[in-house]
């Protein structure tokens, strides 16, 4: 396979053997952990900050504005300036708030997204951990975040926060079903829960093309449900600015607020990269049937570019939703899930199972 030239596993293997020869195995392991942790931390911060910037630019262009353009060229370091401002702000603790829970809530949100990012395959071999139950792990970890939101709302001693948190709880619990079912469709197709295997299975075509209409339906379902799960517009009821001022993070300030804010954007990144991985082939290049020449050219685009290209596309779609649609009401939100998404998803799963059984998909 030509894309072996971009295989990161050789690099990581080399580093591994280098460390193992120079240190005791325990220390080598610890050093590897430290390196991976550091890389993820830096990556996290950069991605988070630039997603905020991207959101502001995207919405600005949609609204006939220019967006941030003062700090740095085209305002590129605007969000870093914002971060410095947030770091320097006072951390206000509310009287009669539950201090412990109030303080740990933002950390829970951020830890959940940290854990999820560990399982994302960025390119061939560029993986922190490659679980054999990767999809399941992502689902489990991303739902820890809602506990942070619930705690934040409950411990703030503010009525607005509490309503926001309760809305968020109801929303995440119901939409998780649809996210899970939508992901399950690809699991059925590929016969594996391991993310790297799912990507390998898309070498001759992405699942969204190979799986015919049912795969497209589950991709759309996944987009809708995951937008809802990460509390973004038009499903941003938990922080509904015009109703609850800021929802669950009304009472947070400074870096704690920044954690929530960053967590939200990172969740968006995780969801987008999961969609890219599962439905759009992850770091796999675009291959069309037997067009050898075309496929060969595509192979020379590095997989990391493919991965980020697809992720950014999905992120753009999610942003596009937010800046176009009005917000749903809580009962409409639940109607959408229980009356439309869930039944369609269930039928879809059965159809997919049937297709797989009969072997009607493109192999």
């Amino acid at each position, binding site marked *: 396979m030509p894309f072996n030239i971009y295989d990161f596993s050789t690099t990581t293997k080399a580093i591994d053997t280098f460390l193992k020869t120079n240190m005791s195995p325990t220390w080598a392991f610890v050093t590897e952990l430290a390196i991976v942790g550091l890389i993820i931390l830096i990556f996290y911060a950069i991605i988070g900050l630039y997603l905020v910037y991207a959101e502001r630019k995207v919405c600005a*262009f*949609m609204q006939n504005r220019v967006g941030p353009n003062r700090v740095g060229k085209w305002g590129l370091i605007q969000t870093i300036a914002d971060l410095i401002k947030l770091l320097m702000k006072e951390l206000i603790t509310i009287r009669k708030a539950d201090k412990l829970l109030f303080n740990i809530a933002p950390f829970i949100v951020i830890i959940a997204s940290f854990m999820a990012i560990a399982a994302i395959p960025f390119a061939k071999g560029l993986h922190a951990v490659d679980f054999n139950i990767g999809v399941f792990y992502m689902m489990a970890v991303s739902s820890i975040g809602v506990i942070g939101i619930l705690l934040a709302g409950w411990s703030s001693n503010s009525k607005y926060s509490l309503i926001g948190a309760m809305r968020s709880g109801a929303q995440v619990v119901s939409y998780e079903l649809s996210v899970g079912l939508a992901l399950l469709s690809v699991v059925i197709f590929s016969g594996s829960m391991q993310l790297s295997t799912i990507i390998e299975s898309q070498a001759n075509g992405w699942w969204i093309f190979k799986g015919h209409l049912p795969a497209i339906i589950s991709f759309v379902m996944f987009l809708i449900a995951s937008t809802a799960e990460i509390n973004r517009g038009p499903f941003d009821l938990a922080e509904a600015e015009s109703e609850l001022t800021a929802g669950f993070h009304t009472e947070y300030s400074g870096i704690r607020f920044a954690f929530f804010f960053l967590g939200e954007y990172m969740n968006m990144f995780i969801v987008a990269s999961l969609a890219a991985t599962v439905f759009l082939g992850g770091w796999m290049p675009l291959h069309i049937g037997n067009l050898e020449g075309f496929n060969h050219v595509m192979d020379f685009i590095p997989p990391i570019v493919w991965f980020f290209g697809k992720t950014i596309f999905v992120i753009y779609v999610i942003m*596009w*939703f937010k800046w176009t649609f009005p917000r749903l009401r809580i009962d409409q939100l639940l109607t959408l899930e229980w009356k439309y998404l869930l039944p369609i998803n269930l039928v879809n799963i059965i159809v997919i199972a049937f297709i797989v059984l009969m072997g009607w998909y493109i192999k």
Partner: protein
Amino acid sequence: MNSVGKYFSDIFYGLKTLWKGLMVTGYYFVHPRQIVTEQYPENRKELQMFDRFKGEVILKHDENNFHTCNGCGICQLNCPNGSIEIITDMAPNEEGKPVRIIDKHIYHLSMCTFCGLCVKNCPSDSLAFSQAFEHAVFDRNKLTKILNQPGSRIKKEPKAPKPVLETAPKSNPAN
């Protein structure tokens, strides 16, 4: 069967309407030329207010530092919220007769609501609005202005003063 049909037609109708909305924002996203933002401090040089813009009240002075205000106090009377105070003085004119002149024409920009009654009703046409619009200052006292420039005097041959509180049509300088 009817309700099943309605269920699916609802879904397609909904998707269609959502797609329409997405097209509007999508159109503007790929047409950055339609951006309407004014980049304020950068365009300060070429930023031109309309000539009738009510920036702040000024007392018109000509190049020889003459103004036409005789201190009649009609602007002060007309001002609804007391932004104008006039302190007059008596000074002998060239024939030696004491004549009323203005000592200070005080204007409180902080209280002004830009209704334009002082400019409209000035019988000697000596007040006008300037196009200045950057009024922010750090000291509130700076918003109280003395409109007559130091050393300025009333024009030697003032126009025949019109009757008091004339509101008949008058030619508009902007035309």
